[in-house]
């Protein structure tokens, strides 16, 4: 059976529309997926120049191979989508119209999301100790994991953020 969209008499018009929909849908899905991945990563985030310092410090860190949002957004897609939408919109808005205090400080929601992601990946190294309970955040002790810590003092925007 051949599909002829121009001539309804030669086949089912409904089936044609369905198949067209699936193709478009697939392209959109793949596109959204690729877009989601690209917008999770450093080259995208660093395209706004206020993110430059965060990107540079990420690039020299132990986590350089990871995408920004491996730490900065929830891993669960249902939580990730709204979180990323809000955070992204906020970033775009303030970058364009707002007044931004430098250096950038992670807000409370980001801190908690990042902390949950530390625990997800480093789960197995902490099952025998109550380390996650000893301090509020992993970075309270592992201070060098935070962005500015890895940068030579002379090149930081402030001494010891």
């Amino acid at each position, binding site marked *: 059976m051949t599909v002829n969209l121009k001539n309804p008499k030669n086949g089912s018009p409904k089936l044609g529309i369905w198949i067209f929909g699936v193709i478009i849908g697939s392209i959109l899905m793949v596109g959204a997926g690729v877009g989601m991945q690209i917008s999770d990563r450093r080259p995208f985030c660093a395209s706004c120049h206020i993110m430059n310092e965060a990107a540079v410090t990420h690039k020299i860190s132990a986590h350089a191979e990871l995408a920004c949002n491996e730490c900065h957004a929830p891993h669960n897609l249902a939580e990730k989508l709204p979180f990323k939408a809000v955070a992204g919109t906020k970033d775009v808005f303030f970058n364009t119209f707002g007044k931004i205090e430098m250096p950038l400080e992670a807000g409370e929601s980001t801190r908690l999301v990042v902390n949950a992601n530390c625990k*997800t990946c480093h789960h197995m190294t902490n*099952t025998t*100790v109550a380390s*996650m309970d*000893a301090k509020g955040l992993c970075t309270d*002790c*592992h*201070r060098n994991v935070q962005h500015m810590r890895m940068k030579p003092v002379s090149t930081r925007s402030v001494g010891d953020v």
Partner: protein
Amino acid sequence: MSKKTISIYRIILGSLLGMGLLLSGCTDVGELTPPVYKTKLPPEEIRNSAFKEEFPLQYNTYLRNDETQVMTEYNGSVNYNKHNNVDPLPEGYKHAQPYLKNLWLGYPFSYEYRSARGHTYAVEDFLKIDRINRYDEKGGLPNTCWNCKGPKMLEWVKAQGEDFWAKDVNTMRDQLDIKDHTIGCANCHAPDTMELRLYSVPLQDYLKAQGKDFAKLPRNEKRALVCGQCHVEYYFLDKSFGPAKKPKFPWDNGFNPEDMFTYYQNQGECQVKGFEGNFVDWTHPVSKTPMLKAQHPEYETWVNGTHGAAGVVCADCHMAYVRTDDKKKISSHWWTSPLKDPELRACRQCHSDKTPEFLKERVLFTQKRTFDQLLIAQDVSVKAHEAVRLALEYTGEKAPNYEDLVIQAQQMIRKGQFFWDLVSAENSVGFHNPAKALDTLASSQQYSQKAVDLAGEATRFGISKDLAGDIKTIVPPILEHSRKLQQDPEHMKTHQWFKYIPVLPAANQVWDVQKRL
């Protein structure tokens, strides 16, 4: 159905089963939560060895407390005499304070005061020390001293209640095992769940008075408070203030030296003029001053220091996470100085951008300056005792308000020496709180010097010529002194200050550790 079809079905079914088995073997990790234990131990277990089987890794690190050799710059595991800066290890050490026996004359601390070994020696060294009288059936100190020697306290206090404290310390001398009942697991852990818990009565009393429930405090606070069960300044109640000799922490006004000193001013039964109502540990026989003896205030020092204020607690540095089997992360139970690790890993957990050499230099920078000022504070304190001694014995023309001035001088001796002692007895040579340590020592020097000035004024400066010059020549440090030596009239002629304490009647040793001789 043909045989061929059946085989195809079987293959498909088999594959599905196989895949199912494989998939059922895949499990996601759970939520990361503090480990929960349900041990085979009864809740009242207190023997250290009982924990070995279930917690072999932690127990092995605990056994490292047996180490008695490794020194740091200002301290270490050799139990040298802390006043002996003449002899080499193990009897003395370069950084000792030569005037300890002078400053504590007339008090058991003047007989023997050594650098502490690990917690595993707590009972053994306690029973060997000359502070408890081993030349008599009675030790001359109350049972309260046992409070920080191990978890046996849980049983004793439960059985004897408030009557326990005031009984003589020797009544319990042979009632425990020196290794199995020394400070260990049950002092901080509930044996059945391994949750952090308190055994120490005075800390429980303090938290209760503050309206705090230990079980509900954040783990971070618990990880400091379990150490604060003992690593604190404390005193034993005079009987009109509660059960006689019950231990209490002097924290009602706060954790700073001035707060604690003020607290002690109306917590005792002293009737000496100028010291009415003061809590008094002993009267210094040379200056006749009602004194305070400070004990290791690590908790109070740390609490508002650089690290304490930032929420870094005892266990973070002194019980750092280690992987002794290269697999599981555990808290090290070798309670010692992080400086003993050449890599300073405990510090570099947070200060990972710094080298071990840099960090060690920073610690020593603080410790050197603190120890230098500690020695000066100690010298001025000795001078103050000597000044008041001279004033008390002065026969020349006195100031019209002589008596008041001498009392004021003694009050300054009491305060100056207490402040010095708070830093002297504290186990970090200032590192736990550099600014507070130096502030406390500066205050100590000023109070002690004030005592010297007031004594001078009382005698219209008639004693001043006797105090001119090096204090080490005027009042030499007492190098040798003990209960046995105090029985020897010849020894008692070797220092000018010995005439202010009695020669003890000759007696033989009655106790050797746990053995009655």
